[in-house]
């Protein structure tokens, strides 16, 4: 039993990210991907196992949050991962208004306020 077995799914997800791995869950029987992390497979109730995500995704929808200066406008997006699940994130290294639905993006793990967070950059750069 590793340390992660003693953790809840949220803590495990974060621990993987801290090791530089973007992991999502798959149904052990169904093989279907699931995100966000859970203790049971959604809609089925079966066991879930962790699998490293490809990191490849597509922008499913996008919005620019407009802020008054000196604050900066920023992007909020919903990304569809190659594995078929969606997550909220943001696309960086691009003007937020230039993020387009259907755009190919690639996951990156960054540190934000001391916590590991998954963001995306434009293009398939895995």
């Amino acid at each position, binding site marked *: 039993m590793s340390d992660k077995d003693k953790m809840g799914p949220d803590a495990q997800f974060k621990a993987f990210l801290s090791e530089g791995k973007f992991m999502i869950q798959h149904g052990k029987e169904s093989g279907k991907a699931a995100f966000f992390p859970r203790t049971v497979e959604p809609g089925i109730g079966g066991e879930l196992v962790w699998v490293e995500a490809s990191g490849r995704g597509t922008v499913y*929808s996008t919005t620019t949050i*407009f802020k008054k200066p000196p604050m900066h406008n920023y992007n909020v997006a919903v990304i569809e991962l190659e594995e078929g699940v969606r997550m*909220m994130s*943001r696309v960086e290294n691009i003007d937020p208004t230039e993020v387009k*639905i259907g755009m190919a993006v690639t996951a990156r793990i960054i540190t934000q306020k001391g916590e590991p967070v998954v963001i995306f950059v434009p293009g398939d750069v895995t």
Partner: protein
Amino acid sequence: MTAFPRSKTAIVGAATHGMGRADGFEASDIAAIACIKALTEAGLTLADVDGLFFCHGTDTLGGLSFAQYLGIHPKVFDNNRTGGSVFQSYVEMAAWLLDAGMIDVALISYGSVQASKTGKLVNTLEPMPYEAPYKPIIPISSYALAAARHMYQFGTTKDQLGAVALAARQWAQLNPDAYKRKPLNMQDYKASRIIASPLAVLDCCLVTDGAAAIVMTRADRAKDLVKKPIYVLGAASETSHREIAWMEDMTVTAAVKSGKRAYEAAGVGPNDIDVLQLYDAFTITPILFLEDLGFCAKGEGGAFVENGRIAPGGTLPVNTNGGGLSCVHPGMYGLFEIVEIIRQLRGECGARQIAGAEIGLAHGNGGVLSSQATVILSGS
């Protein structure tokens, strides 16, 4: 499954209070007044109420506090929290409970003074750990994502969103109770500051105070009461997700299913509806609900609302009180939609009255397109 008790229950009292601003009052204060107004017009009293359905905006046990405030000991009590659609679901549940004989008189109420207390939408939600790091502005950025997707898939335009805002304002100008009644044109709308693209300030519902209450009983008893009974033909609810990233198709809401079951229960279809209220938390939502409730095909909602079709004088009267966009939106709005339909079916709406309205639909939305509930009412 047993069929919905079509026309076996009726709404016999309906009231609002503290619309817009209720400075110096608490939520329960104005809700209690709305309750007494609704009971009084039905010829009933608090002593008759044995089912209480109340949602408090900020206090999770606020429903209990409200029963205590009213000084009643209801047999059936609900303090459900599915968002703005909860009141449509309350009507659905009350119909079943009344028909089963579990209760005799249901009182459904809501009140909020968030505008006079805080000046903004009060957020009582737990941040979602897989959303929070990206700083979404809940709920507007969630609806912005849905609107952006609808625009991408179907070519829906900003002008079409604007048509929803303009129609709401035109209806509000005919409603003395509406909060925003100044004329609004497309130029003003387009100059409105973007908060989360494509949604601007004028795409968002108001933040106001306000309270509402309705009283329901079985149809046989309703006949002997004071007001013309408004019969519950059908009602149904469905929930599909909590956060927007987990909405299966951002352009299709669970209103497809709640609407289908409500129509089946009522034995009517979209063509039979004379007047409708579609929860307009944001300008995109009536467009989605027109599609999902069968008033036009999927993707055609934007074109449907053009040229004043849902505005006063248009062919389909939608949100005749001025909606959440221009009339009232105290955090949760569904009950105000039901009250407006009741008033339309009673013929009490003055300048905004839809002549001969017999069947009305009030559709509620909660969360971020998460919970959907549809009620179909009839004046006969």
